């Protein structure tokens, strides 16, 4: 038989352990519901992502691909890792440093025709800085990020 105060202490420990496991389970569930995978244009072109899944894509804005609607905020462009291209459509205001030849990351979904519908477009604040995701995408595709006149400099 356990002494009463030991039993009380065991009860407290079990309660804390139970509480902790519930907290951990809930946290992991919340995490798994909110993971945005990152894909490169090559991965998307190879059909690694299903239409309708929320994800991030990163690459360079292809030269000459940006087309703006005159009467609305709709814009379309092509992102590329110099191996494969993915068309992107967006409605809204693009960031300051969005321009052709610049690295961007976009968040959104593929539609049935393979066009990426972006809900958010991110470009970095420093024009000579490339986000690690875009850099990784270019390297995976076999392109050398540094050959496109990019160097990493301090950015705050």
């Amino acid at each position, binding site marked *: 038989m356990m002494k009463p105060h030991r039993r009380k202490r065991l009860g407290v420990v079990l309660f804390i352990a139970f509480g902790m496991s519930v907290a951990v389970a809930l946290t992991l569930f*919340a995490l798994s519901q*909110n993971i945005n995978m990152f894909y490169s244009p090559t991965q998307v072109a190879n059909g690694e992502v299903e239409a309708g899944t929320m994800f991030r894509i990163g690459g360079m804005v292809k030269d000459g691909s940006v087309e703006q609607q005159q009467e609305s905020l709709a814009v379309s462009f092509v992102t590329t890792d110099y191996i494969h291209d993915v068309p992107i459509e967006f409605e809204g205001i693009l960031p*300051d440093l969005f321009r052709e030849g610049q690295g961007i990351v976009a968040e959104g979904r593929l539609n049935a025709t393979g066009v990426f519908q972006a809900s958010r477009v991110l470009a970095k604040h420093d024009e000579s800085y490339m986000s690690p995701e875009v850099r990784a995408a270019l390297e995976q595709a076999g392109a050398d990020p540094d050959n496109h006149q990019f160097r990493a400099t301090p950015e705050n």
Partner: protein
Amino acid sequence: MIPELGQFSLILAFCLSILLGVMPLAGAATGNRLWMSMGRPLGAGLFVFLGICLFILGHAFVTDDFSVRVVAAQSNTLLPMQYKVTALWGGHEGSFLLWTFMLSGWILAVGMFSKSMPVEFVARVLGVLGLLSASYILFMLATSNPFDRMVPVPPADGADLNTALQDIGFILHPPTLYMGYVGYSVVFAFAIAALLSGRLDAAWARWSRPWANVAWAILTIGIALGSWWAYYELGWGGWWAWDPVENPPLITWLFGTALIHSLAVTEKRRVFKSWTVLLAILAFAGSLLGTFITRSGLLTSVHAFASDPSRGVFILAILGVFVGGALLLYAIRAPLIKSEFGFGSLSREIFLLSNNVILVVAAASVFLGTLFPMFYQALTGDLISIGPPYFNIIFVPLMILLVILLGIGPISRWKKTSGDYLKQQLGKVAMASLLLGVALPLIVLLDISIPATIAVALAVWIVLGIGRDLLAKTANKPSRREGLRSLTYGYYGMQGAHFGVAVMLVGVALTSYFSSERSVLLQTGDTVELGGYEFLFAGSERVAGPNYNADRATVLVTRDGDGDAVADLYPELRVYLASGTPSTEMAIDPSLWRDLFVTPGEIRDNGAWTMTVYVKPFVRWIWLGAIIMALSATIAATDRRYRKLARVRKQAEETAGEKVGQGELQPVPGGGT
């Protein structure tokens, strides 16, 4: 030649920091009073030489000495003077020098305001801080020397300060945040000194409390400044984004908040001692984690400096040595620490313990969400990001629970409180909170939403609870005024900070649920209506700034219905001359009740502008709440019982005999919490 003097001064500072890290600690271990007494002069010397370093680097920026690499990278001849000076912390090297200088400033302050503490204790605190400074300076000398030259030929002009940083927010936010961050090194050093001496007693908690309060106050302001700056500079109208670099200050802040509460229990009741020490270590670890994430370039964020793996490894080593060493010491000493007082299952101790558990769980979940992408990438090689919904799902319920308990805690009593007493004190308060939670948003904003109702009800719960407690505390005094005067600064600080939470809560909830925004394409003369206001695009003109050219739009805002003029807003699209970087400057009409906010996008070929307009009710309350919290924590830190040196010194001598797990103390006098 002058930058080399800076380099020389940095090396001298390194030597001093080594001495500071060795002599007082060795003195305390061997009982050598001369060595122990070296702590204060060595700390002052460190402050002077790091100050010289900072001054010389600042001089290089002000005089456009582009032969110094960081000046060439971060400054430009066209840069206005205030940004030339502050460009010093616009990059990794200079900002780390500032960080280290801040630490030496804290060391100087500890030396000056520790006259009432035992010599041995002060020596250990200064020694630990000396070791920390030594590792920081070594890090600078080895991987990130701010005085590096451009050889052989310096550029004719600098590359310019990142245009997003040319702003008042950049002048204020980094130094304040660093100052708060580094303040946790002091709290950490106090904890380590207590562990080393084996004396974790009420006196240690009392010495730590003002430092924990001041560090917390400055960190609060630093985070709030960052939030305010991001709000108007980044141009998407948000005040918090769960960015990987915003999160470590928040983690530190959550641990720091838990620490303030836990220290109160340790001082008053001499329980939770080992827990309090652990919190001090965790808060410090949070501050180093922030440094690591910003400077290693491992995570994508608006704050990331250029990535350099060797720096990341070095900071990880500092983190490992100090936090690992502290935890090892803790593991050896903690079993010897005994808590002396019992408490009932309904008592102020229990409410404060719940506060701590909630804050630590919140900090842990933010930590997990922040670093999860890094772990995931290390394990699977896949790149992922964690969205804000994760943080909101976990954080919001925890904070609701915390605020409910916050209303009860200050009214409950130490050791044992009866449920009937709490019901009698707070029953009406709870009813009134629910009623006002429904009524107030309806009256002020003519709108209803369940989250806003919950938030307002919780805020009212806090405020009425404070009022109820003030009534109870002054009830037995001859007059109310006398009663109010008899309450301590510590008490007012606590209730003030809680009031700040209520103000911030209202701001967060109402901004989140009642803000509206629209992105539009406007020709001159077009209008857009939003949230009861009409925005008229009246035209644009070209203007020249000191180091940029801009297109400036004029947007006239009138109230819907009566057409009264409300504000004239002038958002700008700038192009900086030195780097050719475009930058948008939003225009804001701030007020206590709502902000009107216009972000320009771009100018189309036909002269039309794209713009986003926002109406954000109560957004100022977020930062107002932070200011109230910080002021209150400062007031609490000036409580009489920390100031009355003679009395404290006497107590210090009395308690000096107390060793871990041995003997019993006199109950500590002193009012408030």
